[in-house]
Structure formats: C-alpha cells, structure tokens
C-alpha cells in the first residue's frame, strides 16, 4: 500500500475471514460463546504477567460499560432531536412563527402576554397559513385555504420520507421490531443496523410522524437505538468479532430505545426482556438498565418538552379509584383484546395482499394515497387534526376549572373552592356532548386507517395509534360513568362510594386504562406494559386497574389467536424464528424427522483423510447444504466432526492462493498428522482447524420434543443423529417456517467445539500490537469528553 492509499483504507472492501457468517444465515451460539470464553481466558491468564496486562484486562472488562454509556448518550440525543423536530414540523402544517421560524406554536407564544383565557392559544407572532397569505383569519375562504395547505404539507412530508427510504436505505421502513427480534435470536441481516439505515430512519421518522399519518415513533426508536448499539460495537473487537456478544449489546440498546420513547427506563428493560430479546443473561439486565438510565438522563437534559418531563403525556393526578370501577375497567380490557385481534387479522391480511399482489409494486403511490386520505379525513375533526401524542395527552388529563377545550366544558359551580385538583363531579355541558360525538368519529377513523398505515414503506410504529384508540374509548366510557354517577347518585352501586360533592370518577384514568388495554391486546405485553404505564403516570395507585385491564385484554385476545402483532409479522415474512412460547405437541421421534429419508440420495459426507480437493469442490458445487459431517471412512461411518460449508470454501480458496503445491488432486485431511502417502502425491492440505470436533448429537430414539427444546435452549442450527453410539446415520437441521427466501437456512453448523482456533489466533496477534497504545489513549479521551460534557451546563 502506498502512502495515499492509507488515508482511504476504510474505503476498501473488508475481506471476509474464516468464522464470519453470510447474509441471511443464522449464527452459531455455541461457537460464539466458546470463542468469547477463549478470549476471556487468554486475557485473564496474561493479566497475571505484568501491570500493563492487568490494566488491559480491566479495560476489556470495562469496554462493555463504555459501550452502554455511548449508546445511552447517542440514543437520548437522537430521541431529543426527533422530538423537537416532530414538534416543529407538525405545527408547520398549520402555520408558521414569524419572529423565529424554528419555533413551534407553543414555543412561539411562550413569551406573549395574552391574559384572557380565550386567547391563550393565539398570539400575533404565530399565524396560520391562510392568515399569512390572504390576511383573513376567519371565514370559509380561510378554512378552505388552511385545509388545502394542510393536505399539501402532509403529502409533501410523506413523499419526501418514502423517496429517501427508497433511494438511500430500504431497510429503514416499517417498525423494525419484528426484524430486531429475529436478529437477536441469531439471524444475520447485513445492513439492517447500518449507519445509513440509522441516518435515514431518524430523518424519515420525523417526516412520517409530522405528516399526520396514524403511526407512532416508538418502534422505530427501538430500531434507531439498536443501530446506535451496532455502531458502537464496531469500536471494540470484543463485540465486533463476536456475534453472540454483539447481541447482548443490542438487547441493552433496545431497552434504551424504549426508555427514551416513553420516559420509562424500567419499562424499557422489561420490554427488552419480554418482547425483543431471545437470550437475556443476568449481566445484560444490569447493563440494559444502565443504558436505559443514561438515555433517559440525556433526553431529560435536552428537555424537549420544556418542563423536564420525558413524554408529552405525563400526568400527575392522584385521585383514588373505587372497587366498583373495576367493572368498566374490565370492559375496557375486553374491548382492548377484541380490538387487538381485529387489528392483527386485518393488518396481516392487508400486508399479505401487499406482498403478493400488484399493490406491492407501487410503494410510493401507496404512501401518498394513504397520506392523502388520512389528511383529508383528519382535518375537519379537531381531535384528529392535531398530532396523536397531543390527543392522548389531552385525553389523559383531568379537567381543571379552567380548561378551554370542549372536552372539559362542564357546568361549573361558581362557589367552587378548588380550581384544579379534586373537583367534585359536575354535569356535562353541551361542549362535552359535542366532543363525545367527535371522539366517537375519531375512534372509528383511527381504527380503520391504522390497519392500512402500519407496514407501509416508511418508518411506522404502532404504540401511539393503539394507545390513542384505547384512550378515546376509555375517555368515552369514563365520561359516561361520570355522568351516570352524577345524575343517578341514588342508585345502589353509586350510593356506597360516591357522595354528591365528591370527586368520584376521573375520566382521565379510564383513558389510561383503555390505552393500556389496547396496547396489550395488540402486542400481548404483560409486565412491561404495566410498568411502562405506571412510569408514564407516576402513580403507583393505578397499578391494579392497569393490571386488570392488561390481563383481561391478553386473555380475550389469546382466545382468538396466540400471536401478537410482531410474531404475526415474523410469520408473514417467514423469518427463521423459533418462538420460546410455542409448544411442540406431536409425539414423534428423531428418526421420523431426520434427513435423508428413505428415498433421498445418501448423506453427503467427507472422509477424514481420503477426499481430494477436487471432490470437495464438486461436493460444494453440487449440493447446497450448509455443512458436511466428517467420518472416519466410507466403510465405517463413525463420526469425527462437522465442517461448515462457508469455512470450507474460504479455506480452500485461501490454500489455493497462498500455499504452494496444493492442486486439485491434493488430499484433504482432518487428522492431526498427515496420512501416509507416496512421495509422488502432491502436498496434502490440512484443514483440521476448521473442523468442529464436538458437534451436537442425539440418538435416533430421542423424542422430537427434546430435540426442539435442545434447539431452542442452546441455539443450535444443526443436530446430528447417530445410531448405536458413534455410527453416523443421518442428521436433522433446523428449518423453521421455510419460505422461499430462506431455503438456504438449513443450519449454520457448529464448527468449533472447545478447541482453540490456531487460525484466528494469528489474526489477534497481528492486531494487538497497534491496539496496545491506542486502546488506553482512546479510553482516557472518552472519559475526558464525557466528563466535560457533563460539566458544561454548570459552567454557565
């Protein structure tokens, strides 16, 4: 390499080395674990040699925490940027701030001096588009112009979003959680967590949410956080070279993503544990919590909502609830379960149609059409015109004496003493009934349009729309119960717990319970849902209603179908994901499932010292198995080990290029010593280092339940079946939901048992020289940077 080439070394294509995986294949958990144990053992044994080695071992141990810190910082920053940009762009559809164009409506009117209550939202600095263009603020012409510009802005934002996704990063569309679940279970999708995907997902998420579509940003935020995790993994070889360790970091990053989306660190960790991760060791639990806390702290210091809260709909009332209210709460749970089932069935049917028919050929047109319909139908109803987060915030909030919204148009008693908290129940004014009609229409609209929105080719999440549906339903039920309690306070049920003049019913609580029920019905979350909801509200008093609703909705929804929305999407796309919750109910043995069967061609094996390079290459070309068992000889088929197809290909290619004397008729041997050959034969090729000497085997009478359990718990992809001890007969490989795209998915063989890998040790040695001085410098630098960043706010 000449001097000029050095600067651009990172532009060169990286050469794949032995031990990496191909795209759209699964990793071998056992091999990754044993590699990590080897690495750790090496470092620990060397740390006793000198102080420098001890420091290096400490740095290696701390690298996990450094990665978590970085992930938390970046996720929190990106979430803050997204929140601020969404806030501004959503208001851009309606008007613009004249004094400083970067302010949203609320920020623009922050310093204005309007004192009267009716004018609280108006200020001269912020004008709607009609007012800006024509000078008229009211009237039919202004309304039509505002309407037209609203639709135009929505179409523009969604068109930009889908174009950016299409041109730069097609993997940035959709929610991301089904694919992340698959990746965390051991699947490889190269580029899914890449830098361009991160950038495009962040930018287009803002555009998609601002365009007024019925989607949320929580699922995509998990994807963004996992991309950050992947980005920082590449800084440390401990994580970048080991796919198993990398997935631990990604689990923690997913927790950080949910934490910033909801302002719920504990809920985020539980979500990662329950929904997203496949293997979740206890060490990951503590580290995930750390990442989630750092992310939440970073977001709070950016302060996007101006009141040190992390989420737009944080509520703080503490009014008590009554036992008799459990009946409407359970009814809301049933509604949530039913809605969840309806949504999953309808959405999967629509997505399947998109996959298989002509609809899928016009993604840009589809997005524009759905946005157009959404904007046209959403503008007239004031509850759908504003962003969904604001709608939820309004529905969650309890009405004070001084609210200006229609929903709080209660008839006030002029002698009332308390203005905000604990206001006694009041009769509803005409505004409330009006609001109820509009809310009912909004409910129907949201139920229908979300089915068509989720799964389009733009980043789309589904937490916020589900919560909106639930919140609307809950609020309607809450107002109904409240009015019933007020007007019929002499009925038996109300007499005991609701005296006139007391604050019995809080419709905002019903909205929260409804939101939890609907979200639980769709995603089938249990503990994480309850924890997220009570972290959102800050009140431990409401755990029981939330749990009642969540449990009811899960039971009702499970009665119709066992899978949540993410598992359904995994099944729809045919990803190789073995769900831990599924049970294997057939009473079969291993002999019934294994291949080759009676009529199939015989098993393709390699012998330990009599196959030539030519034979191996022919075998690789003729078959598409991912690995081959190695036996003693064709006569006595005793199993020696298992070799991976990819490793074989790379090793032979390497050998042909680099080693002298290796030709097509060279013998390939897997034993420790070269076989006895006449001197005229060409140089034999030793491939023992790529051989797995301890492949997993079961006998042919092992029940399939056990085999499936072994696959699930150990993360195997291939299992060999032997008869009478060591005689190899046949083998099973994992092919879960084999769909056309993944027919190669028949297992990534376990190539390494507990033996050391001489080959890769060479790689390590070459790099440690440079790493030595650089690693410490690098670490100290980051420490200083983080410390300064934390100190900066206090300097001013």
């Amino acid at each position, binding site marked *: *390499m*000449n001097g*000029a080439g050095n600067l651009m*070394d990172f*532009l*060169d*294509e990286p050469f794949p080395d032995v031990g990496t995986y191909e795209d759209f294949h699964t990793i071998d958990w056992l091999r990754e674990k044993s590699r990590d144990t080897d690495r750790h053992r090496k470092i620990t044994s060397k740390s006793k040699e000198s102080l420098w080695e001890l420091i290096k071992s400490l740095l290696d141990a701390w690298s996990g925490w450094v990665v978590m810190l970085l992930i938390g910082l970046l996720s929190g920053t990106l979430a*803050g*940027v997204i929140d*601020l*940009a969404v806030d*501004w762009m959503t208001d851009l559809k309606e008007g613009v701030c004249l004094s400083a164009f*970067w*302010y949203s409506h609320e*920020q623009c009117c*922050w*310093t204005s001096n309007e004192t*009267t209550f009716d004018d609280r939202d108006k200020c001269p600095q912020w004008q709607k588009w009609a007012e800006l263009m024509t000078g008229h603020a009211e009237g039919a012409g202004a309304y039509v112009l505002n309407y037209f510009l609203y639709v135009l802005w929505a179409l523009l934002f969604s068109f*930009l979003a889908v*174009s*950016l996704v*299409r*041109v730069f*990063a097609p*993997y940035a569309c*959709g929610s991301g959680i089904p*694919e992340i679940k698959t990746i965390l279970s051991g699947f490889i999708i190269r*580029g899914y967590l890449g830098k*361009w995907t991160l950038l495009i997902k962040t*930018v287009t998420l*803002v*555009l998609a949410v601002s365009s007024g579509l019925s989607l949320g940003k929580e699922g995509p935020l998990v994807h963004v956080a996992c991309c950050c995790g992947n980005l920082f993994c*590449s*800084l440390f070889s401990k994580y970048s070279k080991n796919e198993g360790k990398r997935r631990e970091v990604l689990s923690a990053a997913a927790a950080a993503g949910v934490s910033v989306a909801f302002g719920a660190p504990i809920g985020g960790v539980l979500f990662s544990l329950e929904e997203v991760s496949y293997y979740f060791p206890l060490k990951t639990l503590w580290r995930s919590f750390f990442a989630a806390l750092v992310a939440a702290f970073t977001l709070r210091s*950016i*302060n996007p909502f*101006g*009141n040190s809260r992390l989420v737009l709909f944080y509520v703080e009332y503490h009014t008590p609830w009554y036992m008799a209210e459990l009946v409407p709460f359970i009814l809301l749970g049933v509604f949530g379960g039913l809605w969840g089932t309806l949504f999953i069935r309808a959405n999967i049917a629509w*997505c399947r149609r998109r996959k298989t028919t002509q609809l*899928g050929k016009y*993604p840009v047109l589809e997005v524009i059409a759905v946005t157009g319909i959404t904007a046209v139908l959403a503008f007239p109803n004031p509850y759908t015109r504003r962003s969904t987060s604001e709608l939820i915030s309004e529905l969650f909030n309890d009405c*004070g*004496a*001084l609210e200006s919204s229609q929903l709080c148009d209660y008839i006030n008693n*002029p002698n009332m*003493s308390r*203005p905000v908290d604990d206001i006694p129940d009041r009769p509803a004014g005409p505004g409330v009934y009006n609001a109820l009609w509009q809310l009912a229409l909004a409910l129907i609209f949201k139920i229908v349009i979300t089915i068509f929105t989720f*799964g389009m*080719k733009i980043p789309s999440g589904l937490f916020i729309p589900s919560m909106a549906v639930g919140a609307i339903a809950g609020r309607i039920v809450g107002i109904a119960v409240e009015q019933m309690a007020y007007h019929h306070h002499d009925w038996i049920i109300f007499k005991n717990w609701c005296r006139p003049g007391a604050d019995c019913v809080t419709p905002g609580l019903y909205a929260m319970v409804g939101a939890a029920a609907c979200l639980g019905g769709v995603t089938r979350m249990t503990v994480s849902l309850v924890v997220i909801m009570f972290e959102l509200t800050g009140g431990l008093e409401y755990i029981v209603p939330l749990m009642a609703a969540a449990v009811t909705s899960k039971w009702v929804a499970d009665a119709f179908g066992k899978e949540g929305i993410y598992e359904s999407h995994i099944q729809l*796309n045919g990803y190789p994901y073995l769900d831990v919750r599924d049970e294997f109910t057939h009473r079969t043995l291993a002999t019934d499932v294994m291949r080759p069967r009676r009529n199939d061609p015989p098993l393709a094996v390699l012998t330990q010292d009599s196959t030539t390079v030519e034979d191996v290459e022919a075998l690789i070309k003729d078959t598409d198995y991912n690995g081959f068992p190695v036996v003693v000889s064709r006569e006595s088929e005793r199993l020696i080990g298992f070799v991976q197809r990819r490793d074989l290909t790379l090793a032979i290619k390497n050998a042909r290029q680099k080693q002298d004397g290796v030709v097509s008729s060279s013998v390939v041997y897997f034993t420790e010593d070269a076989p006895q050959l006449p001197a005229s034969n060409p140089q034999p090729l030793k491939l023992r280092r790529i051989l797995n000497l301890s492949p997993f085997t079961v006998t042919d009478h092992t029940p399939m339940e056990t085999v499936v359990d072994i696959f699930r718990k150990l993360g195997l992809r291939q299992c060999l079946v032997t008869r009478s001890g060591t005689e190899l007969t046949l083998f099973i490989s994992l092919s879960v939901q084999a769909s*056309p*795209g993944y027919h190669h998915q028949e297992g990534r063989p376990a190539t390494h048992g507990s033996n050391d890998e001489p080959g890769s040790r060479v790689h390590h040695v070459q790099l440690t020289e*440079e790493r030595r001085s650089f690693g410490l410098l*690098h670490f100290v630098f*980051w420490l200083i*940077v983080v410390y*300064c960043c934390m100190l*900066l*706010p206090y300097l*001013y």
Partner: protein
Amino acid sequence: RRPTVKMKRVFLLEALSVACCVLLSQVTAKNSEDIRCKCICPPYRDIEGQIYKQNVSLKDCNCLHVVEPMPVDGKDVEAYCLRCECKYEERSSGTIKVTIIMYLSILGLLLLYMVYLTLLEPILKRRLFGHSQLIQSDDDVGDQQPFANAHNVLSRSHSRPNMLNKVEHAQQRWRRQVQEQRKSVFDRHVVLS
C-alpha cells in the same frame, strides 16, 4: 506504527464529538427569556379567569410576584391567590434553534444528494461515456433505479489506487448494497413485507 482502519474511524468519531461539545456550549448559554412563571387564576366573584406570565426565577414564582396588576383589593388578595395555581417553566431556545437548523440542513443535503443521484448523474454519465457504453441492468423495474449502472462503472475504473478512484469504488460498493436491499424489500418482498 501505521494506524489501522478502525483507528481512523475512531478518530473521526472523536473529532465529531469535540464538535458536538462545542455546539453544546452554544446551546447551553442561558437566555433570560427562557424562564417564566405561569399563574392560572380561575374566575372569582365577578372577575374572569386570567393567565399571568412573567420571566421570574423559581423563588419568585408565586401569586404575589406574578399577578400584576392585582385585580382585587387588599383583604381579598389572599383568597384570590389561594385559588391561583402557579407553575415554573423552563426551556432552552438555543437547543431548539440548533436542533431545527441542523435537522433542516441534513435533510436538505440528503435531498440534494437524492436529486443528484436520481436525475443528474445518469445524464452526466450518459454525456461522458456515450450511449453505447451504458448497459441497463435487467432488473430495472418501472422507474429508473438510481444505481442501475453501478456494475458497469465499477468495471470501467482504472487500476490506479488514487483517492478519487477509491472514493468511487466505495460509493459503487455502497450503491450495490442499496440495490440489493431495494430488491429484497421492494421487489421480492422477502424482508419487511
């Protein structure tokens, strides 16, 4: 020792972080208008509901300091103030400004690059290399794929390893990856329904 690929990446990242810290210092400069106290006072006797705002600090955020002019007389002030609810709010206008401008500039750059890739580059390539050299790849579906001639240009490049060629190589490799992704997502519907 010659630094490796990874070191280069990390140096870039660290330079970026220094820039971010400088930006952070801009952002955290406090503006006096960024704090306020908001008092909401409900209707009292014949006085209507009012909202009062003032830029005062946390310790002065109460009814007596903020509600000016006081609409009631001496002895009613306490009763009136008991019903008012005062909240202290803070924001960072620097953060908002920096974030929105940064976001818009990144969006603008991406849009320009997208326009260049989809519209300008095929025209430029056609002019430079002539019609006969361009082979449309056979997976052109519907409208023009931006990276359709990635393979072609890659094969044409000279073997001199200078910087411009390396950048172009890397760009072509990235385009090929995006092309693959686009095929699996949009055409074959294998990933992401």
